């Protein structure tokens, strides 16, 4: 996609088309493949004539695989977009969706929910979500005061939150029994297998957040120039920062409450597209949405099909595949 001289709208169109195609292929591949065997010979019949076939096969695709593919797609695009926003907002290349303490807060919430013997949904999801919202509130108060939303105090506040919650998590794990332990560990590494069909509507909550962030692509470009320059170019820096922070934290919390802490997607996917497409957020936002979704669908496919027995947490695959890919692109761009 080396089209430096092409006008922006053509670059956007081209990248969206290519990535949408990749996402579609990834989705179809993930629906058709699984431990129950691939059913490619009858796949299209199952897709287009539901019910008229073996109810078992139909159920596997519609009740088990589809919700999972949808969750992977939504989680992938939310985390990638979340990382993109925080990297721009905090002007820090190491920023990722969890940097402000969402991971720690939701993990403590989730583990407490599990200890209380709540069901995965809605019980543990709700406690996880509550945990991250409480953290967001605390970070906003910490970073607030006289000059709200300074990026240094935001980052420090988030890091302190995560350090504190990290200690709480370790303490809780030390109290847990073996059966719970595995549950907790899978949640901490990110696990897409918990989803059920009745859960999927919850994911719709991320859509308005994504739409809001999408609209703020140009102010995000200007924020890269620094607060003063952005303000002198007509950006309401305080309002835009606050809106971006809240929308992003909210949608990431929704995803985390359903999938646990899937790492690396939010850190690497924005960087990968920045290397491929350049710094303009009008290109990067759609690319992260589509590319993040495709990436996590494929990682989850690997996580549930590669092991001979059972499955790996998807968070293992995201970094195992993604880190080398990222290093390769970085090496190529520096040559």
């Amino acid at each position, binding site marked *: 996609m080396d089209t*430096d001289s092409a*006008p*922006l*709208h053509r670059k956007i169109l081209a990248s969206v088309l290519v990535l949408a195609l990749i996402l579609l292929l990834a989705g179809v591949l993930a629906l058709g493949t699984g431990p129950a065997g691939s059913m490619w010979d009858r796949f299209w019949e199952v897709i287009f004539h539901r019910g008229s076939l073996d109810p078992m096969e139909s159920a596997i695709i519609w009740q088990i695989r589809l919700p999972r593919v949808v969750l992977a797609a939504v989680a992938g695009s939310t985390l990638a977009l979340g990382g993109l926003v925080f990297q721009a907002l905090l*002007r820090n290349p190491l920023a990722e969706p969890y940097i402000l303490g969402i991971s720690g807060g939701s993990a403590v919430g989730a583990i407490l929910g599990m200890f209380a013997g709540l069901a995965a949904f809605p019980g543990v999801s709700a406690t996880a979500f509550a945990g991250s919202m409480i953290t967001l509130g605390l970070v906003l108060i910490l970073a607030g005061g006289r000059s709200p939303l300074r990026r240094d105090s935001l980052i420090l506040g988030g890091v302190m939150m995560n350090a504190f919650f990290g200690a709480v998590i370790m303490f809780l794990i030390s109290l847990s029994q073996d059966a719970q332990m595995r549950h907790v560990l899978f949640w901490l590494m990110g696990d897409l297998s918990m989803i059920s069909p009745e859960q999927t509507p919850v994911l719709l909550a991320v859509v308005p957040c994504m739409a809001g962030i999408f*609209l*703020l*692509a*140009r102010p995000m*470009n*200007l924020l*890269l*120039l*620094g607060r*003063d*320059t952005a*303000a*002198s*170019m*007509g*950006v*309401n820096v305080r309002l835009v920062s606050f809106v971006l922070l809240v929308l992003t934290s909210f949608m990431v919390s929704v995803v985390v409450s359903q999938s646990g802490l899937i790492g690396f997607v939010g850190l690497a996917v924005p960087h990968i597209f*920045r290397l491929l497409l*350049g*710094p*303009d957020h*009008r290109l990067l936002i759609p690319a992260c949405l589509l590319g993040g979704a495709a990436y996590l669908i494929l990682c989850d496919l690997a996580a549930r099909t590669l092991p001979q027995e059972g499955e790996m947490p998807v968070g293992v695959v995201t970094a195992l595949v993604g880190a080398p890919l990222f290093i390769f692109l970085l090496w190529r761009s520096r040559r």
Partner: protein
Amino acid sequence: MNAVAVQNVHLRYGEQKVLRGISCTISKGEFFAVIGPNGAGKTSLLRLMAGLISPSSGSVEIMGRPLKSYSRRDYARRVATVPQEVPFELPFRVGETVLLGRSPHLGLWEMEGNRDLELAGQAMQVMEVEHLSARRLDQLSGGERQRVFIARAICQEPDLLLLDEPTASLDPAHQVKIMDLMDRLRREKGITVVMVSHELNLVAMYAGRLLLLHSGIQAGLGPPQEVLTKELLEKSYGCRLQVDENPLGRVPRMMPVPEKYSDIWESAFKIPGPDR
């Protein structure tokens, strides 16, 4: 009509009084410089004019309208600011950076059209950076970088251009180049230029009028001959200064007197009587 009218402006940060009773007007098309020692409030005054902070009391009018009456976007269409510090690690290319100057004129997702590209090209031409268009910002020298950021501001099509120490950390050749370009911009496009600077000799040759600040107080306002006097400058900067006439023109020339030359200076140059 004045480009800028500052009326009895005070600015406080908590207990600290940063500006105390500043009043000045700047005409359209004027080259105006704000000088003074570090911490005198120069940057704060510029930030007030840029609409980045509001005064604790007093009023700021821009183009005959109170600053408060502008919306952010409206204001950005008439006033462009080149701040002192821009993040060093910027991922943009030169052409992209200059084109960002069109943002206040475009809707949230409106794409830059041919006219915007044309204006960006013109701005790059004026600042003599068009040959760098495809280069990344982190590959530029300090002088080139500064010219790119000024081109970005020009691309905003401002009536008023505010610059905070645009020649800081540049070599003499690049300093003069920036000043020449600012002067040409003022003459050819009628843009009002307001500049904060420590380069007294340089601004003496370009600015029509200067404002001298000293601990937030207005210590002098007027043409270089009136403001850049030995008496005023030594009082404000708190150091010994040698002030004479610039052989290039009828403007003052300043030189701080180092300790090791103070004996020579006292015997040879310190002439009693009116200073100049």
